[in-house]
């Protein structure tokens, strides 16, 4: 269990200090929870609270770059942040938690009911990372989840501002864990669909993208049937719903989001 805390003063100090027995702590809403296995497994926590340069929001030539330590409430209150990202940030219903939780922490937490990852993934967000060798690199958010970047510090997130993007989240109450959070974006190349399915993981719905791109007039019934019989989808019965329910929800949500996108101005 972590008994030590390092108050890093710079991103470099934080990145260099990240060893296998250390974990970053940003807003602490995941790490500091009673019974958190992140704090249980680590010996040292590296607090990012006093790190300089991780908290600004800059808008430039159609892109917005958000410091990893920006809180959900910072996103909601900033006039530089696009509406689709504010909407995803408001999925975190509790204002007190929005005052604490950060965008970097949400991405790194990789939860299967993630608030922001579906929207950031559909938007093709780019992360800036800092490794223990203090070399900075930029990668697409989807690449971040392949496991090779776990020890790196996320320093910022860049998204395109003027994109068409819509999201939906299903939970019993505003405070509950969501069974499905799904986002879809569209540009001249086609539609992009990403989601988070509770207890399943973060998903990129390539088959659905292809189906909508090949036939924009495809019927809802065909989409429902496609997801119902999809063998690549590892949904199972659990307390969040049956396998059949989750598949149905993914299908009708994908159809709804696509319909919304078609009628949506940038």
């Amino acid at each position, binding site marked *: 269990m972590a008994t030590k805390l390092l108050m890093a003063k710079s991103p470099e100090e934080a990145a260099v200090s990240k060893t296998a027995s250390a974990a970053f702590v940003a807003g602490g*809403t995941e790490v500091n929870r009673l019974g958190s296995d992140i704090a249980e497994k680590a010996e040292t926590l590296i607090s990012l609270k006093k790190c300089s340069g991780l908290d600004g929001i800059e808008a430039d030539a159609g892109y917005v770059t958000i410091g990893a330590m920006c809180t959900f409430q910072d996103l909601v209150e900033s006039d530089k942040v696009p509406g689709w990202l504010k909407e995803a940030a408001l999925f975190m219903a509790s204002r007190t938690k929005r005052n604490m939780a950060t965008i970097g922490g949400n991405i790194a937490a990789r939860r299967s009911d993630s608030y922001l990852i579906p929207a950031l993934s559909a938007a093709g967000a780019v992360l800036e990372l800092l490794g223990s060798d203090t070399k900075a690199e930029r990668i697409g958010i989807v690449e971040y989840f392949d496991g090779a970047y776990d020890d790196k510090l996320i320093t910022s997130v860049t998204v395109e501002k003027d994109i068409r993007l819509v999201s939906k989240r299903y939970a019993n109450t505003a405070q509950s864990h969501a069974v499905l959070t799904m986002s879809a974006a569209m540009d001249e190349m086609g539609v992009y669909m990403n989601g988070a399915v509770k207890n399943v993981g973060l998903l990129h719905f390539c088959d659905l993208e292809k189906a909508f791109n090949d036939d924009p007039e495809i019927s809802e019934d065909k989409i429902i049937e496609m997801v119902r019989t999809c063998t690549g989808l590892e949904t199972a019965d659990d307390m969040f719903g049956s396998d059949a329910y989750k598949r149905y929800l993914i299908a009708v949500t994908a159809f709804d989001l696509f319909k919304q996108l078609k009628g949506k101005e940038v």
Partner: protein
Amino acid sequence: MAKQYKVVHCTVNGKEIEQVVDVRESLTDMLRNDLHLTSVKKGCEVGECGACTVIINGEGFNSCIYLAVWAEGKEIWTLEGLTGPGGELSDIQQAFVDEGAIQCGFCTPGFIMTSWEIVNSGKEYTDDELRKALSGHLCRCTGYENIFRAVKKTMLRHLGKFEEAELVNSQGITEYPDPMPFK
């Protein structure tokens, strides 16, 4: 492994304090165990219920998932800081009493701290916004309506809308007479 300690300097309810804390200690533990401010409740300790809410530099935080060492240099308010020198209740506390917004009282300090931020924001929240602003708090007893009404009435009074505050009905809806005498 040996624990690590740090000295924290901050202001709590207007008083400057210096406190030695375990670096993994939560702000809830520092406020309750070291400073004996027991209005700060331990409900879930996972950021779910809002019972531990305190105001840090003007904004509400769940103190159970906030490290005490992060309080260095901060200005913190708990429910104890809202009462007057003779123990007089602040207007938001009195409104909770008047509207029957308390039963067992466990959630009440947390609710009042968030409400205090709301009523002092100078902003007029819509009913919908007000419900959302209170949504980080759980109450097992009251059914929320009385709490909502207490906060709404106090917010309106803070904005100088005393007559409108009296028109808030038992469901929390403002029942304007026809024709509306003000606005």
